[in-house]
């Protein structure tokens, strides 16, 4: 049996800010342009992909983030078991999308590390390292952006008041988390 290793081990807490990695979370990149693609995704997952830029949609099990006109990320709302990495959603979409040449499904579960942030200082932290304008973003539940934080590409999902998910590529995640903690320590 293979052991599962975390990328980010500690949970960190500061006044007005808590940060921790959520894992394992299934993550898929799904790509497609055709109309059947959207409808077929909708049917398969009973989740409508957001077509408006910088937004997200959510079902009981899954959340979908808009990344570009033909690209979305789908991730599981709950953490899964680390004992196996055979995801029914992925298989379902492979059958209904890939095999039917409607689009592309790619497993990126470990490509990205999901860091969850809670507290009222989330955006104060982001403002120390991201050029993105969070003024409207922070008041809009479900908004999504791909931008730069501390020179690293990130996807930020404002899933709730004082509750945001940040996705960063695994090989960058420890560096970024260290930077976030350094910055948070002075907020």
């Amino acid at each position: 049996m293979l052991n599962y290793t975390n990328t980010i081990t500690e949970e960190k807490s500061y006044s007005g800010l808590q940060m921790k990695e959520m894992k394992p979370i299934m993550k898929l990149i799904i790509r497609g342009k055709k109309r059947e693609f959207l409808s077929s995704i909708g049917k398969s997952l009973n989740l409508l992909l957001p077509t408006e830029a910088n937004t997200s949609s959510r079902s009981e099990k899954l959340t979908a983030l808009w990344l570009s006109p033909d690209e979305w990320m789908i991730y599981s709302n709950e953490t899964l078991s680390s004992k196996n990495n055979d995801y029914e959603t992925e298989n379902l979409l492979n059958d209904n999308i890939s095999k039917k040449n409607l689009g592309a499904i790619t497993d990126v579960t470990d490509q990205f590390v999901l860091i969850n942030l809670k507290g009222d200082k989330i955006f104060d932290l982001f403002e120390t390292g991201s050029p993105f304008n969070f003024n409207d973003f922070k008041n809009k539940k479900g908004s999504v952006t791909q931008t730069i934080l501390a020179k690293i590409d990130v996807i930020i999902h404002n899933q709730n008041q004082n509750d945001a998910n940040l996705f960063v590529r695994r090989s960058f995640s420890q560096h970024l988390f260290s930077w976030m903690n350094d910055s948070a320590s002075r907020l």
Partner: protein
Amino acid sequence: MFIINCPYCGEREQSEFKAGGEAHIVRPKQPTELSDDQWAEYLFMRKNIKGIQFERWVHSHGCRKWFNVVRDTSNDVIKAVYKMGEKPPTKK
């Protein structure tokens, strides 16, 4: 530092983008038919305009989409943006 209005994501900082040079230089469909001079023209020769330039940018740290920008290279004012494949707006 410009603010660039990505046709897909909206207004973002220049830091999120990369420039791709002069736009509407179509890769020849039949390169082998071209003379060395014609190929060099495609490969290297540029208008390098001082004034209104049509150019390519990519939202490399966002949606990763390429698009076109109309910019006055003498003062860096961006006049318009438009998607790949769309007709360039006529000069105002």
